[in-house]
């Protein structure tokens, strides 16, 4: 049970850290100062949430260092979905990814809030306050860009076709999920989570004139939840850990 819970926590932590890092790459490059500040702020919050989940992993382990989990692991030990490690393209693609991810994160935190592992249930309750804004922000951009002009609609449809196969990786489960569901620690199966997520995003996408593409789930067969990642993650970790690698013993 401890191992399954640890895996679940690591997934959440890695998702938040990696998408937070990608969002932070927009700082200084947003389409206007207000949106730049808002996305930078969201990036900070995601990385803050990652820290809380890493601390919980250490608690489950009975030892460890959250910074080492974030900056000291090889790519194969990361458990985030492939969707969040992809490089940013245009603003619309990043906000579409944010929207797809936040919808999933909301569904995930709803389950976590019912966990019998009390520290997780409490944490999920607190995080939902901030995540609510993230989802509103993403949804507002998707609705506007999807339906604003012919060009914006076309670009958003292309973005959706590009990110959709990776997005399915968000709701991929492993053996850990069955264990957690059985024990009642996290009372939901990956299938139910996938259904809730797909139905939720489909409504907004349809209203934004962005029909869900007919793509086989996880077309590339990548399984971020099993530690299978792309070279995009190698590049991201190279950059994200560069300062720490200068002096791994330094105190911050």
């Amino acid at each position, binding site marked *: 049970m401890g191992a399954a819970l640890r895996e679940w926590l690591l997934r959440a932590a890695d998702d938040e850290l990696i998408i937070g890092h990608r969002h932070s790459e927009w700082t200084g490059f947003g389409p206007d*100062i207000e*949106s730049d500040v808002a996305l930078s702020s969201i990036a900070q919050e995601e990385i803050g949430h990652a820290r809380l989940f890493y601390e919980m992993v250490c608690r489950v382990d009975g030892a460890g260092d959250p910074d080492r989990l974030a900056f000291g692991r090889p790519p194969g030990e990361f458990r985030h979905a492939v969707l969040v490690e992809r490089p940013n393209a245009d603003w619309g693609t990043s906000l579409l990814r944010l929207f797809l991810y936040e919808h999933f994160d909301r569904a995930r935190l709803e389950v976590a809030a019912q966990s019998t592992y009390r520290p997780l249930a409490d944490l999920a309750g607190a995080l939902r306050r901030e995540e609510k804004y993230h989802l509103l922000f993403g949804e507002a951009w998707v609705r*506007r860009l999807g339906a604003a*002009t012919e060009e*914006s609609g076309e670009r958003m449809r292309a973005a959706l076709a590009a990110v959709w196969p990776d997005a399915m990786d968000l709701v991929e489960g492993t053996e850990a999920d069955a264990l957690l569901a059985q024990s009642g620690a996290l009372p939901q199966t990956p299938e139910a989570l996938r259904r809730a997520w797909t139905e939720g995003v489909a409504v907004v996408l349809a209203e934004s004139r962005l029909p869900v593409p007919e793509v086989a789930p996880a077309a590339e067969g990548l399984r971020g939840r099993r530690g299978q990642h792309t070279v995009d993650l190698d590049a991201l970790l190279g950059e994200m850990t560069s300062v720490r690698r200068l002096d791994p013993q330094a105190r911050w």
Partner: protein
Amino acid sequence: MGPARRLSALEQDVWAVFRQATKHDPHVYVGDVHASDPEMALLLAKEQYARRDPCVNLWVVRYSQIFATDYGDADMFRPATDRSFRFGGSHRDQQRVYREAGRRRDDEE
């Protein structure tokens, strides 16, 4: 000053942002945001102006909906004779009202 124009989702207008610190405070002007519509203006205002300071409510108002006096007329606000009698500070009842309002706010915060 013409009537408010309806913008497309990608055009932007300037909005004045008003922040309310507690339910019993007035909304106070804190700055501007650029946005295409009220919903986006509120979303952006939240991160620009309610990140650090306490906030329970935000207003946004499109600048074209605000009507203003002319700075050229600023001298009309300057009294020509002594009007200190208009400040009720020397009245005992006025002081009591200020004190109680301050206490009520302290209790609620």
